[in-house]
């Protein structure tokens, strides 16, 4: 009555339903995780219904299907892969999360492959026909799965290479890689003799080169400039001067492209002077108006000859218990010559005659008024 396919999906339904209940009970009854698990359960139930209705769509004509008499024993690598994946999961638990994740992936992959192969082996006594049954059940998963893994490996290795080679070398590597892809494509398209083994060999060689280069550059690390920047960030955060309480609001700001691409104003130090420019209008201004209680990005650009930092002075506050009046403010990291830093500020209270806000750069005269209406 229950077809093999429907058993699989009924199992999936049951499992995800139980997980959903446990999740809602132990984690959170109303977040996306519960919705996702219930969604899986519903989808599983739907497909289980279809497979029951259509009997897995398994319709074989009499001459296609060979009567199942004996169980053929085909050698299978999946039990071994499955056992290996368990070992990797355990190693991962003890060592690094990434190993654990890879292990879990292998665990499910080999488990599904094993189950499907076993199921297919029962279709008939004819190994070839069983192979066909297996392929029909799993190919639609195998190919995209392998393609994803392959794509990820290519992307990872290639990105390591691009981060590792010098700035000047990068375009050349890029051009060579692109030209290679184009050449192989052209050869496959126009030279029938190249298709098949020669093409496969070429691609294999390229893959080996790519993976080797990827591993080499992963070990070697990022190119000098990039490595310097992240080291400088660490140094700057450790050596902040604008007050022990002010938390670094711009952690790794140097690398934050999205923040830098959307700033309300740019504040520049140049020749010992500070000036501001608002995005949208290039004229220099001496005050910056930002909306109350809203995240606002300010870009600090140091064109001076020395290291500088931008301070944001947000008036004063009285500490309730002691009555001591202290300054409120924050600042960017020390920023080298020709470098930029972004700081994100949120000012909950409007500026007024007795609460005046400003931007200053220690060591440089002049200030930019910060107006909060």
């Amino acid at each position, binding site marked *: 009555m229950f077809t093999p396919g429907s058993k699989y999906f009924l199992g999936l339904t049951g499992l995800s339903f139980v997980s959903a209940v446990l999740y809602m009970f132990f984690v959170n009854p109303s977040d996306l995780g519960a919705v996702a698990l219930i969604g899986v359960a519903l989808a599983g139930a739907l497909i289980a219904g279809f497979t029951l209705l259509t009997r897995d769509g398994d319709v074989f004509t009499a001459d296609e299907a060979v009567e199942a008499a004996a169980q053929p024993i085909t050698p299978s690598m999946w039990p071994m892969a499955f056992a290996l994946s368990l070992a990797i999961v355990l190693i991962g638990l003890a060592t690094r999360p990434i190993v654990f994740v890879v292990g879990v992936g292998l665990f499910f992959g080999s488990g599904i492959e094993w189950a499907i192969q076993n199921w297919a082996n029962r279709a008939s006594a004819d190994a070839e026909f069983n192979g066909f049954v297996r392929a029909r059940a799993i190919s639609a998963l195998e190919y995209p799965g392998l393609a994803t893994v392959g794509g990820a490996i290519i992307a990872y290795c290639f990105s390591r290479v691009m981060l590792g080679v010098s700035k000047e070398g990068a375009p050349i590597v890029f051009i060579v890689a692109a030209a290679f892809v184009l050449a192989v494509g052209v050869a496959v398209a126009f030279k029938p003799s190249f298709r098949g083994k020669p093409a496969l060999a070429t691609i294999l060689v390229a893959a080996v080169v790519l993976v080797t280069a990827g591993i080499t550059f992963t070990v070697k690390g990022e190119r000098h400039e990039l490595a310097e920047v992240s080291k400088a960030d660490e140094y700057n955060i450790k050596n902040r001067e604008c007050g022990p309480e002010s938390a670094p609001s711009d952690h790794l700001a140097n690398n934050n492209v999205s923040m830098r691409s959307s700033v309300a104003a740019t504040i520049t130090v140049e020749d010992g002077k500070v000036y501001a420019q*608002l*995005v949208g*209008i290039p004229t220099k201004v001496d005050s910056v108006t930002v909306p109350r209680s809203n*995240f606002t990005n300010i870009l600090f650009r140091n064109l001076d000859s020395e290291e500088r930092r931008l301070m944001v002075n947000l008036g004063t506050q009285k500490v309730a218990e002691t009555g001591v009046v202290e300054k409120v403010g924050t600042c960017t990291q020390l920023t080298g010559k020709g470098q930029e830093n972004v700081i994100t500020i949120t000012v909950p209270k409007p500026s*007024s005659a007795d609460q005046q806000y400003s931007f200053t750069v220690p060591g440089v005269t002049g200030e930019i008024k910060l107006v909060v209406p």
Partner: protein
Amino acid sequence: MMNQENHMTSEKDMKTLTTVKSTRRRIAAGVAGASAALILSGCATNAPQDTWKPKGENAAKIDTLQKMVFPIAGIVGVLVLALAAYIFIKFRDQGQEIPAQSHGKPVVEIVLTIIPALILSVVGVFTFRTIFDLAKTEDTEMIINVTGQQWWWEYDYPAQEAQGITQPIITSGQLVFPVGTKVLLRETSRDVIHSYWIPALNGKKDAVPGRIHLLRLQADKPGIYAGQCTEFCGLSHANMRMEAVALSKEDFAKWVANQQKAYTAPAEGTLAKEGETVFLNQCARCHQVNGIKDATGKAVISAPDENVYAGAAPNLSHLMSRNTFAGATFDLLTKDCRSSVWDAASEEFGAKYLAGVSESCLNQKDLRAWLRNAPAMKPMYADPAKLKPTGGKYRGMPNLNLTEDDIDKLVAYLLTLK
């Protein structure tokens, strides 16, 4: 005899025939009428958000482009559909033999690639030119910060010597700006993505938290131009409207002077003075009125950051200088007073708008209803029992359970905020 019968039958037949004909005609007329009504309904006379009636240079650029692209696209669309219909009918399956299957005809394929490519490149050239024109900012004459939040727009005007703005101005709902001036809006958002769109003045531009997006705005003539948020932003998205008010340069200067006017507290012993006290107790924690002082003479700074999820509530310093409220959803003016402003000739418009809201023109009904129970007027997340997801903060204005007495006092007070 036979003959006569025959004759009679044919007469009857004739009658049936006429009825059939007239029924068909009636159906045809009905269909034609209905389609005409449907098509004409697209031509409402009172459609302030009509994209086909540009009232400024930016919208005019879009309109010019659209008037060129629309016919081209239309002709191509009709041609393709007609050709497809012809092929469907001409070659439909009538049991004929399947014709010889061939593949490819280079001449046809090349021609059919080149023609669309040419059309697209012509359209493309004009489109890109318009896009770049609309993205230009070097010619800006004035900037206004526009901040969206659930479910109203805040405008603040940084100090700008050239425009006579010496202190920052802050307002909401109605964006006031001078005619013939190239204004640049700097849009952002305090919570979710919103989108600013005044169809008569320019296309739309998203307001995204953490980002500043620029939108040019320019109006040729004084008047009010309506718009609404065009990025779904939650419960009251449909009630997040806005109006752009263009004033002549002189009138704009008057408006600026009024917005920069200092606060004058109501005289002792008046109903408005009692209203100020109610305001300080009930409203000042969210709404800022610039310059307001408490009984001890200390300046009162509102704390919407502690009470409202977006961190802001409309600044009410000059509430009665605008003529709508709550995301331009309700009128502060009575119907008659409102139409006298909206329908004013452009020479008279400025003076009428600057008159603001007087006691006789105040839309008491809606303002009182708002003070009585704001969430009943406009859907908002303002049920104190359901604020867990926002950490106890309101999205919108809550029902403050005021007494009718307090509401009388408050209305008297709000009327002084000109």
